[in-house]
C-alpha cells in the first residue's frame, strides 16, 4: 500500500538518532499518526505537534507531556494491542511505538478537547485538599445513594481491561556478585571496572538504550567519541563478556532485605508482533553480593501559576526529544529556570533553528559564561525574573514575565515553555534499602547518608556532579566491589577519559515567585493528583505537622509517579508554612515499586491450574468414572457424593446413608493424615502428645486419641494403631496432618530431645478404603489373606497385617459411622486396583460408595466430632464430651496444666450436645445462634451455636450438634433458634441419634 507521506511538523531533519528509513504508524484517539522506529509515544506525539494528551484526575485540566522518562506524571494513556490487551495508565514517555499501536487519552468525556468534567476546575474551591473528608460527611443517608456512587464513578484513572489477561509472564531467580542499577555514565563505568576484575555482573537500565543523561547531553565526549556512542560501545563490550548480563528495558522496582532486588524486564511490549514464545514481562529476583546504585537524578519543574498547561515541560526532557528523537517541543520556546541545565537545552534548540524568545532566570546572577553564550546566540536573558503565569488552555500560548522583586509584567507569546528547578538525586533504591538520607543544604537536596546494606551509590544519585568525579567514583566502586566479592583476584585498573560535562548550578524547591503564600493561583506541585502549593499550605494551616500526614491529607506524592517531581517541592512548601528547616520536617518514605509494575509479572506462572497444587487420591479416576461429585477440602479433591439416575445431593446422601447402615458402603479415606511414629520411646512420646494413656496399648490395638495444645484446647484427633512395640501408625484429620507433624517435631526436637523417636509423614504412602456396614466383613473376606476377620480375632478397635487382593495391608477394624467397619490401608500405588475390586463386590451386593457428605451425616448420627467443625480452638476434651479420653492418672501430657486453668474448669462453659427440632422437620442452619428466651429484647443473649446439622434419613428426623453454655445440664430443655423469618424450637439431647448403646459396632 502506498500511503501518503505524513508530515511530522516538529521532526527536525538531521537531529536525533532515529532513522527516517524506519517509519511506523500508530493511532492516538483513533487518529493515525506517523512515527519513527525508536520513538516513544510521547516523542511521536510531540513530533506531530500534539502536547494535549489527557485530563487531570481531579480538576480535569488539560494536560500535556512533562518529561521524557519514567518520572512522567501527566501523560498517562491507555495502550491497546488488541481487544484483550488494553493497559491503562501507561506513561507515554516510556512506551515505545510499535507499528499499529493504539493509544487513547484518559479521564475525559466526551473528548479530550471538550470535557464535561472540566466543571471541577471551575468549582475547585469546593475540591480543596481533604475535600473527601469534609464534603461527604453529611447527611449520613446520602452516603449510599449519592456520595459513594459519585466517588466510585469519578475514582480511578483509565479503564481497567475487561478481558482475562491473555499474556504469559515469566520469572527468574538470579545470583550475582555485583548488581548495577542504571546504565548511564556511572553505571557503565562501574560495570566495566567490576567486570574487568572478574566479578559476575548484572547491569540493568529501564530504557531501551543505555546512556542515561547521555541521551540528551551531547556536550560530553568520552574516550574520544560522543558520549552516547561511547555508552553503546561500552554496553556492547559488556554484553560480549561471559561474566556480565546486560538487561535493557529493565526497571529495578524494589530493594529488599539482604541485597534482594526485584527487576521487571519488559520483553515484548515494544514489539509490533511479538512471538508467541516470548513472555510479555519477566520478573528477575536478584540476590547480589554487592549492589551499585547509579540511578541518576531527576529534573524538577517550576511551581508557578498554570504550570500544567500542555506544552510546558522539563528542560532536559526537551533536550532529549531534540537530541535523541530529533523532535522540537515547539517552534517558539520560552525558558524558565533556576538551574543551568535549561541554558544547554535552549542553546541546542536555538541551534536547531527553534526560536527562543527569552530565558527567564529567577537568579539575579546566573553563570556569566552561559548568559554571554545566550546573548551571542541572540537569546534574550531576563535574570532576576519569574514567570508569574502561563497563558493558554489546551496549549500554552504565552508566559507572563515580571521581575522577582515586583514590577510590570510582560507577556511573551510562546508555544512551549521548558523549565528547570534543579535536580533531585534518585535516592529511591538507596532509601528502599533502608539507608538514611542526609540533607545537603548547600544544594537543597537529599543524598545517601548512612548505609544499611551492602551497597554503594555512585554518580548523580550520590550527589556527585562533576563528570570526571562521577567516572572516578564509579570505577572505584566497581573495582572495590569486585575485590570485595573476590578478594584473591589481582586488581585490574581501568581508565576512562571524559570531557565536556558541566556541573549545573542552581536550585529552587518550593513555590516560584508569584505562587507564594497568599496568592490565589493554581501552581501545581503534584500534577497527577492535582495538588497545588496552596493545598499544601492549607494542610499545614489545618494543623498537619508531619510531612507524612500532609502527604496523606493532600495526596501529594501518592499518585502512580510516587512524587518523583513533587516530593521536594511539597516538602519545601510545608517546611516554609511550618516555619521549620526542611530536614526537620523530614522526607516521606520511599516504597516499592519505583514505577508501576503489573500483577501479571509478580504472579508469573502461579495462576490457574498452577496457582496451587491439586491433590487427588489414588482412587480419584475410579471415582470420576462412577460419577462422583467432588468438593475441595484444602488442596484435596474429595468425592462429595455419588448421584445415581438424576439424584440431587439430598437424595444421593439419603440413599448412601441408608445403604451403609442397612447393607454396606465404601468410602475413600485416603486423605487422612498419617504419621509413622517409630523408636524405643515411641509409646512414651505419644503418651506425652495425646491426652489419652498410650503406654499400655497392646500391639495390634487401636485407640482414638485427642491432642491438645498446652492451653488445654483440642488441637487434633485421630486413631492411633500400635503396629509393634516400637511402631505406631498415627492418623490425623485431613487438614491437620502438617500442623500435627510440626507440633510433634517441635516437642521431639526441643522439649523431649532425649527420646529416641522418629517421625515420618506417610499420608501420601497409604491409600485408605473404609468399608462400613453390617455386610462389610462379607464384602472384604474373599479378598483377604492371612488375617482372621472374626469378631473374636479382630474385634472393634484392633488391626492386623496381611494381604488384600494380594496386596500388603494394614487392616484396621474401626468405624467412623457407628457400624461394623474396616479401614483398609494399602500402599498408595495399589489403592485404585483394590478400590475397583472391592467396589465391584459392593455393587454386586447392592451396596454403594459414599462421599464426604454422607460421612459427615453418618458420624453426626453417632455424635462423633469433627475437629474444626464441632470445635473452634476454645473447646476442651471435657467440653466436647470426651473427658474419658483424658488419662486421669497421667503425670504429664501436652495440655495437662492448661486444662486446669480457672476458666477451663469454671461452670457455664459451652458444651457439645445434641439438638432435636421439636417440629420434627426443620433442619437447623450450621452456625445458627441459640437463645433461651426468643422474646427478649435485641441484642439477645446467645448461649451457643449449632456446629453440625443434617437431615438424618436413618433417624427420619433432623439432627444437630451444638455448643451450648452448660449444655450437659440442660438435657430435655427447650431452647430457641431465631432465624430471619421464624424461630425454631429445639430440645437439648445427647449427641447420639442412632444406636445409642453402640452395639452395631461390634457385629
Amino acid at each position, binding site marked *: 500500500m502506498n500511503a501518503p507521506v505524513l508530515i511530522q511538523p516538529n521532526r527536525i531533519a538531521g537531529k536525533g538518532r532515529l532513522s527516517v528509513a524506519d517509519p511506523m504508524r500508530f493511532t492516538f484517539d483513533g487518529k493515525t499518526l506517523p512515527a519513527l522506529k525508536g520513538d516513544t509515544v510521547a516523542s511521536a506525539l510531540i513530533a506531530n505537534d500534539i502536547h494535549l494528551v489527557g485530563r487531570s484526575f481531579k480538576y480535569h485540566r488539560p494536560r500535556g507531556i512533562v518529561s521524557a522518562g519514567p518520572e512522567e506524571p501527566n501523560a498517562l494513556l491507555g495502550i491497546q494491542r488488541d481487544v484483550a490487551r488494553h493497559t491503562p495508565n501507561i506513561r507515554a514517555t516510556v512506551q515505545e511505538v510499535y507499528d499499529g499501536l493504539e493509544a487513547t487519552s484518559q479521564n475525559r468525556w466526551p473528548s479530550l478537547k471538550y470535557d464535561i468534567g472540566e466543571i471541577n476546575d471551575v468549582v475547585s474551591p469546593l475540591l480543596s485538599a481533604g475535600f473527601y473528608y469534609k464534603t461527604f460527611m453529611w447527611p449520613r443517608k446520602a452516603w449510599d445513594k449519592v456520595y459513594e456512587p459519585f466517588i466510585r464513578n469519578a475514582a480511578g484513572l483509565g479503564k481497567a481491561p475487561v478481558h482475562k489477561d491473555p499474556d504469559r509472564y515469566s520469572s527468574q531467580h538470579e545470583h550475582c556478585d555485583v548488581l548495577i542499577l542504571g546504565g548511564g555514565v556511572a553505571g557503565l563505568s562501574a560495570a566495566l571496572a567490576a567486570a574487568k576484575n572478574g566479578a559476575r555482573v548484572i547491569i540493568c537500565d529501564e530504557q531501551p538504550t543505555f546512556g542515561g543523561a547521555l541521551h540528551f547531553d551531547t556536550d560530553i565526549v568520552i574516550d574520544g567519541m560522543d558520549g552516547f556512542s561511547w555508552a553503546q560501545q561500552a554496553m556492547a563490550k559488556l554484553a560480549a563478556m561471559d561474566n556480565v548480563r546486560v538487561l535493557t528495558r529493565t526497571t529495578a522496582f524494589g530493594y529488599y*532485605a*539482604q541485597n534482594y532486588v526485584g527487576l521487571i524486564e519488559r520483553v515484548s511490549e515494544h514489539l509490533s508482533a511479538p512471538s508467541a514464545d516470548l513472555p510479555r514481562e519477566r520478573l528477575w529476583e536478584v540476590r547480589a553480593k554487592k549492589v551499585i546504585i547509579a540511578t541518576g537524578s531527576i529534573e524538577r519543574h517550576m511551581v508557578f501559576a498554570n504550570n500544567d498547561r500542555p506544552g510546558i515541560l522539563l528542560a532536559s526532557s526537551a533536550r532529549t526529544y531534540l537530541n535523541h528523537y530529533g523532535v522540537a517541543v515547539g517552534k517558539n520556546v520560552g525558558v524558565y529556570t533556576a538551574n543551568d541545565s535549561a541554558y544547554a537545552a535552549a542553546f541546542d534548540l536555538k541551534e536547531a533553528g527553534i526560536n527562543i524568545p527569552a530565558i527567564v532566570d529567577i537568579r539575579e546572577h546566573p553563570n556569566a559564561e552561559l548568559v554571554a553564550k545566550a546573548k551571542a546566540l541572540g537569546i534574550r536573558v531576563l535574570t532576576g525574573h519569574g514567570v508569574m503565569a502561563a497563558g493558554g488552555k489546551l496549549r500554552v500560548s504565552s508566559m507572563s514575565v515580571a521581575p522577582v522583586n515586583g514590577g510590570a509584567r510582560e507577556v511573551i507569546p510562546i508555544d512551549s515553555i521548558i523549565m528547570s528547578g534543579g535536580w533531585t538525586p534518585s535516592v529511591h533504591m538507596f532509601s528502599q534499602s533502608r539507608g538514611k538520607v542526609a540533607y545537603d543544604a548547600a544544594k537543597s537536596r537529599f543524598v545517601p547518608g548512612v548505609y544499611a546494606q551492602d551497597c554503594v551509590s555512585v554518580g548523580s544519585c550520590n550527589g556527585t556532579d562533576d563528570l570526571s568525579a562521577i567516572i572516578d567514583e564509579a570505577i572505584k566502586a566497581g573495582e572495590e566491589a569486585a575485590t570485595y566479592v573476590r578478594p584473591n583476584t589481582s586488581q585490574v585498573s581501568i581508565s576512562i577519559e571524559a570531557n565536556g560535562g558541566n556541573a549545573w548550578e542552581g536550585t529552587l524547591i518550593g513555590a516560584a515567585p508569584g505562587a507564594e503564600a497568599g496568592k490565589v493561583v493554581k501552581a501545581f506541585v503534584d500534577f497527577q493528583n492535582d495538588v497545588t502549593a496552596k493545598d499544601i499550605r492549607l494542610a499545614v494551616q489545618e494543623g498537619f505537622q508531619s510531612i507524612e500526614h500532609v502527604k496523606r491529607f493532600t495526596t501529594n506524592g501518592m499518585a502512580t509517579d510516587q512524587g518523583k517531581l513533587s516530593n521536594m517541592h511539597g516538602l519545601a512548601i510545608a517546611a516554609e508554612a511550618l516555619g521549620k528547616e526542611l530536614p526537620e520536617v523530614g522526607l516521606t518514605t520511599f516504597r516499592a515499586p519505583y514505577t508501576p509494575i503489573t500483577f501479571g509479572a509478580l504472579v508469573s506462572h502461579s495462576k490457574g491450574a498452577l496457582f496451587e497444587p491439586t491433590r487427588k487420591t489414588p482412587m480419584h479416576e475410579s471415582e470420576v468414572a462412577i460419577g462422583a461429585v467432588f468438593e475441595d477440602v484444602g488442596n484435596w479433591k474429595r468425592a462429595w457424593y455419588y448421584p445415581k439416575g438424576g439424584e440431587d445431593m439430598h437424595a444421593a446422601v439419603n440413599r448412601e446413608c441408608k445403604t451403609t447402615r442397612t447393607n454396606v458402603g465404601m468410602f475413600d479415606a485416603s486423605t487422612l493424615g498419617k504419621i509413622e511414629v517409630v523408636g524405643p520411646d515411641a509409646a512414651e512420646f505419644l503418651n506425652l502428645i495425646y491426652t489419652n494413656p498410650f503406654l499400655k496399648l497392646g500391639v495390634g490395638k487401636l485407640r482414638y486419641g485427642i491432642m491438645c495444645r*498446652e492451653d488445654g484446647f483440642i488441637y487434633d484427633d485421630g486413631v492411633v494403631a500400635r503396629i509393634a512395640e516400637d511402631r505406631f501408625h498415627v492418623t490425623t484429620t485431613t487438614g491437620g496432618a502438617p500442623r500435627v507433624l510440626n507440633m510433634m517435631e517441635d516437642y521431639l*526436637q526441643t*522439649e523431649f*530431645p532425649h527420646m529416641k523417636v522418629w517421625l515420618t509423614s506417610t499420608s501420601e504412602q497409604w491409600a485408605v478404603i473404609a468399608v462400613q456396614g453390617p455386610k462389610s466383613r462379607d464384602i472384604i473376606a474373599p479378598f483377604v489373606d492371612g488375617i482372621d476377620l472374626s469378631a473374636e480375632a479382630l474385634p472393634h478397635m484392633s488391626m492386623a497385617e496381611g494381604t488384600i487382593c494380594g496386596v500388603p495391608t494394614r487392616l484396621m477394624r474401626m468405624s467412623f459411622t457407628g457400624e461394623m467397619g474396616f479401614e483398609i490401608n494399602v500402599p498408595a500405588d495399589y489403592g485404585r486396583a483394590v478400590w475397583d475390586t472391592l467396589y465391584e463386590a459392593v455393587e454386586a451386593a447392592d451396596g454403594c460408595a459414599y462421599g464426604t457428605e454422607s460421612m459427615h451425616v453418618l458420624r453426626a448420627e453417632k455424635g462423633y466430632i469433627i475437629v474444626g467443625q464441632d470445635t473452634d480452638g476454645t473447646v476442651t476434651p471435657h467440653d466436647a464430651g470426651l473427658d474419658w479420653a483424658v488419662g486421669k492418672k497421667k503425670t504429664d501430657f501436652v495440655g495437662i*496444666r492448661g486444662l486446669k*486453668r*480457672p476458666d477451663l474448669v469454671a461452670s457455664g462453659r459451652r458444651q457439645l450436645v445434641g439438638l432435636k427440632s421439636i417440629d420434627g422437620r426443620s433442619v437447623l442452619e450450621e452456625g445458627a445462634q441459640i437463645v433461651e428466651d426468643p422474646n427478649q429484647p435485641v441484642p439477645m443473649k446467645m448461649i451457643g451455636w449449632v456446629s453440625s446439622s443434617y437431615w438424618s434419613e436413618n433417624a427420619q428426623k433432623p439432627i444437630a450438634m451444638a455448643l451450648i453454655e452448660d449444655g450437659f445440664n440442660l438435657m430435655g430443655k427447650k431452647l430457641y433458634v431465631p432465624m430471619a423469618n421464624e424461630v425454631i424450637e429445639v430440645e437439648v439431647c445427647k449427641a447420639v441419634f442412632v444406636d445409642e448403646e453402640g452395639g452395631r459396632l461390634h457385629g
Partner: protein
Amino acid sequence: MLLIHCPYCAEERPETEFAHAGEAHIERSTEMNALTDEGFSKFFFYRDNTKGTTFERWRHIHGCGRYFNAARDTVSDKFLTTYKAGEPKPDLSKLVDDQTNAGAKS
C-alpha cells in the same frame, strides 16, 4: 526475602524454606502439673515482643526440618546469629560488636 543461616545445614537459605516458631528460650517445665496459674500464664501467654534484639525460634521446615534459634534485630530485620536448639543464648554484647565491625568494613 531474608536469607537465614541454618545451623544444622550450615547453609544460608531463603526465608521461604523456613517457618517462624515464636520466642526462643521458653522452657517447658518438667513439672507442668505443679505450675501455679501465674507460672503457667508466664510460660504460655507472655512474650517479650522486644524492639531490638530478640531471640526467636525458626524451623527449616522445607529443608532439614530442624528447629533452631536465632538472635535477630526486630528494627533492622538483621540476623545477628543462628544457633542450634538447646545451646545457650549467645553473648549479645559480642554479637553487636561483630556487627558494628562488619558494618565498618563494608
